[in-house]
């Protein structure tokens, strides 16, 4: 059994450099434990320094390998990297096989400054974006310079997560469908940089030229066209070029205000989430405690009242209940 530690102790230990405490905090944050508001209050003043890069793309394109190699490159130059690798949870059992880490073991297995954490997507309704960026905030406060968020590019929730990063890398590879596949919605629209991995495989050059055209078409007037970088990640080829392009993009996004915009969006969803959680907590209490609510249900089922109208009436009652509860505090 794990020893219990208060969240305040965990935050203190994390700020003193404890990997264990950081990992424990992530578990609480990911599960949206009731201690999360308190944790985030303490973590927030220490965050805001890390740069977040999102990676997405079809399964098998080589995301984990690219992420692993890039992390190794930065680790060698003394930077502290954290990787958040998200894999899908089963919608039936809630279980998940988190297998991204296995691709990174060779390069990062014993690198003490690289922190890798696998997360299950835990269903789209679970607030994946909020949870992921709270985890990123924790790692930021822990002192990481760069945070890589890796998701499978399938499903709205996962793409949403990537879109909220400071910059977005889409990883593609040959043999995964023709250029028409690449033109489908999503892929071409979210990447600030597009990586064509496995660039030594048959069809890579063909795909590269049609990708360039597709990227050009997908770029609106006045916007920056995403750069295409060719890599052979398993051989470390193209990884330095990718890093250079990421730096170029970062400078550009600071200059034209894009970085600020994306960070504001993250703050927005964080604040919305806190408000939503609070309202939901009161709503749960209201629906289970209030006699008016039970009465309201009876009036629909027995007296045949209209549920929509009843909901309007109960909402009014709930709002005054909410005010009353807040005033009591």
């Amino acid at each position, binding site marked *: 059994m794990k020893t219990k530690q208060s969240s305040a102790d965990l935050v203190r230990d994390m700020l003193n450099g404890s990997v*264990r405490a950081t990992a424990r905090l992530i578990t609480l944050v990911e599960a*949206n434990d009731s201690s999360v508001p308190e944790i985030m209050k303490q973590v927030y003043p220490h965050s805001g320094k890390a740069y977040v890069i999102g990676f997405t793309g079809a399964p098998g394109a080589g995301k984990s390998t690219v992420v692993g190699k890039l992390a190794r490159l930065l680790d060698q130059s003394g930077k502290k990297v954290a990787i958040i690798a998200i894999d899908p949870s089963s919608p039936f059992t809630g279980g998940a*096989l988190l297998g991204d880490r296995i691709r990174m073991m060779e390069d990062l*297995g014993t690198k003490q400054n690289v922190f890798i954490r696998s997360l*299950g997507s*835990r269903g789209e309704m679970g607030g994946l974006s909020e949870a992921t960026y709270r985890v990123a905030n924790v790692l930021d406060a822990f002192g990481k310079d760069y945070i890589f968020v890796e998701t499978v590019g399938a499903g709205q929730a996962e793409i949403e997560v990537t879109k909220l990063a400071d910059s977005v890398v889409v990883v593609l590879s040959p043999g995964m469908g023709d250029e028409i596949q690449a033109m489908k919605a999503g892929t071409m629209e979210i990447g600030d940089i597009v990586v064509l991995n496995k660039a030594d495989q048959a069809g890579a050059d063909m795909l590269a030229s049609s990708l360039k055209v597709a990227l050009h078409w997908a770029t609106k007037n006045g916007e920056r066209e995403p750069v295409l970088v060719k890599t052979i990640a398993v051989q470390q080829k193209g990884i330095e070029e990718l890093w250079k392009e990421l730096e170029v993009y970062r400078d550009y996004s600071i200059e034209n205000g894009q970085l600020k915009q994306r960070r504001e969006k993250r703050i927005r969803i964080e604040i919305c989430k806190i408000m939503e959680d609070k309202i939901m907590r009161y709503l*749960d209490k209201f629906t289970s405690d209030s006699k008016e609510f039970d009465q309201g249900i009876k009036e629909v089922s027995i007296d045949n009242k209209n549920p929509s109208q009843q909901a309007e009436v109960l909402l009014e009652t709930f709002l005054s209940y909410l005010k009353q509860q807040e005033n009591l505090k």
Partner: protein
Amino acid sequence: METKMKKRILVTKSDQDAHEVSVRYLTQLLRDKGMEVIFTRYSIIDEVVKTAVEEDVDVIAMSFYSAGLVYDTTRLMELMSEQGIKGDIKVVIGGTISEPEKRELLKIGVDEVFMPGVGTLQDVVECVNA
């Protein structure tokens, strides 16, 4: 407000050991029980402890079908003591293990040992889930 604490398991084996069917099957069974399973192959045992700490797992499950059983497990327990996580994280070992080896493993602090011909993978799942 629901909180979703999930059981997290690290299933791992030496990269040198090619026997992987049973651990893959175990991984599947654990997943189907609703657990989050991190699967890795390690080059040196030190990686296992680092992974277990970062992933904040509840259980480390290791499989051995070739050499290294006692050496790796002893080192694992040492490193866990160093990190202050011995006893915090359950350790379960399975594979081609003899009786004397089993006694040795239990002596150094392994929580459960699964040997050939004793029980099924379902028992392992139950042990992990307990």
